[in-house]
């Protein structure tokens, strides 16, 4: 926390850190003071030094003192913590909304103009509001450098906001346990100057428009990104949670259907089936139930882009 | 061990202790249902309209009937405690018998009620229910879960009272040691107590 590289990373940092420092200071003080007294007593009053104990029952005055002082201290801690947190809930009206989507085990970010990325790219000095959506189980959007965290609960709307004051690339972690690849569910926020940001928006829009029609393969990559498929599948033939795309088209695959082993050919229908009913055919050696259906999400057009792209991987 | 002080390994009784123990157990049962009442409260709060409409599906007459007979059984059970203290064995047995009979009737009613619902395709996880929408799914999910758990308690109570009746019959439970009867009574009243809340929540507030 108390680390130079994240200072001013977001406007919350100084407040959260000073609340933390206060609590930490009080805690350290009590820890050392009490330990010191204890060690001193143990040394001073050990049997060899003080063979006969003095009988003391207690003292009401002391009890009151050491009830009241900690009470006051914790009340200060409470209000410190509260005021630091209140800002995080008060979203400025001019904040730029970005939709953050979490699914097992990747994040995706959708900008107001419909563009989708897997890294969050934001302009400096401008409040950003993230609308959090989870598609399967609970995840949690955690940006340590910004001191923000919010659970992403399926079926429930929630949001966070931040304003970054420092350019750089900061980690995003999923902080709520969400299954097998929870620890790999990461992304990043890239904070860039406002001018660069606008330019980047323009360029990407142009690129997308241009490639949308002509370069289906490039479009396929962006589909994979949009739905976070790469969290579980690779393009290089290595095995993660699910099979790799490499060589999928045209291959003969051994799958398990309803407990029966059978052979199928990796064609268009197979791909469609695998995306819309992922648990119908399970490639031998992989586990059932890890992938959810994308029936209502991946469009037919996107599916075509994907197949086009997969073909390129089999060439 | 000439003293009068009690020894756990002796044949010793502490009726007051058993009663406290029974009450503590009843507290845990209350808390068990309290958890469900919280769930009910929250979902009712989140789906007021659906809960309202779904409740109308339940038959108030059957519910009322069940409430009334369960209350009667509670009364006969309490009377059995009095009867055994008055050393009226036959009367005690009769009262216990009535209690058991009513418990049985309650279950019969429940059976037909559930069967009716099942017949209409309403049971946990059924297709029809899913079609009705979230509020209804939750309402009937809770309905089956809570009344089911309550029915389970009725069955346990039934077994307990049967044991008591057998022991009264063979004179191993008399006015000298009526604790088991009293404690079964407490348990039976608990079952009643829970129903007193279940009834309005599911049948009435529509």
């Amino acid at each position, binding site marked *: 926390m108390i680390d130079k590289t994240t200072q001013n990373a977001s406007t919350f940092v100084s407040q959260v850190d000073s609340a933390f420092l206060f609590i930490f200071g009080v805690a350290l003080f009590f820890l050392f003071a009490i330990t010191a007294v204890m060690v001193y007593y143990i040394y001073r009053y050990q049997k060899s030094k003080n063979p006969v104990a003095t009988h003391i029952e207690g003292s009401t005055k002391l009890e009151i003192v050491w009830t009241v002082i900690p009470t006051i201290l914790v009340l200060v801690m409470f209000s410190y913590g509260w005021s630091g947190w209140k800002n995080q809930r008060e979203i400025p009206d001019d904040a730029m909304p970005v939709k953050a989507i979490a699914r097992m085990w990747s994040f995706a970010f959708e900008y107001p103009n419909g563009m989708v990325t897997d890294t969050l790219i934001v302009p400096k000095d401008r409040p950003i509001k993230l609308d959090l959506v989870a598609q399967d189980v609970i995840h949690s959007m955690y940006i340590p450098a910004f001191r923000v965290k919010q659970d992403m609960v399926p079926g429930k709307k929630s949001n966070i906001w931040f304003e970054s004051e420092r350019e750089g690339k900061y980690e995003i972690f999923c902080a709520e346990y969400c299954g097998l690849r929870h620890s790999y569910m990461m992304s990043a926020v890239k904070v860039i100057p406002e001018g660069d940001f606008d330019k980047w928006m323009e360029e990407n829009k142009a690129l997308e428009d241009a490639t949308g029609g002509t370069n289906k393969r490039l479009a396929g990559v962006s589909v994979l990104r949009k739905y976070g498929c790469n969290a579980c599948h690779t393009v290089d033939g290595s095995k993660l949670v699910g099979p790799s795309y490499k060589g999928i088209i045209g291959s003969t695959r051994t799958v398990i259907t309803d407990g029966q082993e059978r052979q199928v050919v990796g064609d268009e229908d197979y791909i469609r089936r695998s995306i819309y009913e992922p648990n119908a055919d399970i490639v031998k050696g992989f586990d059932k139930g890890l992938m959810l259906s994308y029936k209502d999400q991946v469009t037919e057009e996107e599916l075509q882009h994907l197949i086009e792209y997969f073909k390129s991987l089999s060439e | 061990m000439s003293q009068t002080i009690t020894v756990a390994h002796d044949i010793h009784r502490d009726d007051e202790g058993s009663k406290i123990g029974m009450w503590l157990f009843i507290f845990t049962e209350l*808390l068990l249902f309290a958890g469900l*009442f919280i769930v009910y409260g929250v979902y009712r709060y989140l789906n007021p309209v659906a809960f309202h409409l779904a409740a109308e599906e339940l038959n108030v007459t059957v519910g009322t009937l069940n409430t009334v007979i369960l209350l009667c059984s509670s009364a006969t059970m309490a009377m059995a405690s009095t009867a055994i203290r008055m050393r009226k064995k036959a009367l005690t047995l009769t009262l216990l018998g009535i209690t058991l009979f009513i418990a049985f009737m309650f279950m019969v009613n429940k059976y037909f009620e559930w069967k009716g619902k099942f017949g209409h395709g309403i049971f946990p996880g059924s297709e029809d229910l899913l079609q009705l929408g979230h509020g209804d799914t939750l309402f009937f999910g809770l309905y089956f879960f809570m009344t089911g758990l309550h029915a389970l308690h009725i069955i346990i109570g039934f077994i307990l009272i049967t044991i008591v009746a057998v022991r009264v019959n063979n004179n191993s439970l008399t006015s000298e040691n009526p604790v088991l009867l009293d404690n079964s009574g407490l348990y039976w009243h608990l079952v009643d107590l829970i129903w007193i809340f279940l009834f*309005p929540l599911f049948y009435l507030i529509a």
Partner: protein
Amino acid sequence: MENHNDSHIVPFKTYGIILAVLIVLTLISVAVTQIDLASLTVFTAILLASIKSGIVLVYFMHLKFDNLMMKIFVTAVFVLVALVMVVTFLDYNYR
């Protein structure tokens, strides 16, 4: 540690009266909920149920003849349940 198991014998008549009262209350609550009291419906239903359960606790479950400690325990448990519900609704009510 005497066993006062015959401390108090409740006459049958008392139970009879209590039963009658309970049944009447049940019928009242059925009747009341048939008329539309809007937001008060839930409230009256719960209120009547609470009164009924109070009667069951006090008479059928002999709290009336129990010592003070038992009365305090039972009350405390109900208060606890109520508080837990209130605290839970601090979330739902203000979402």
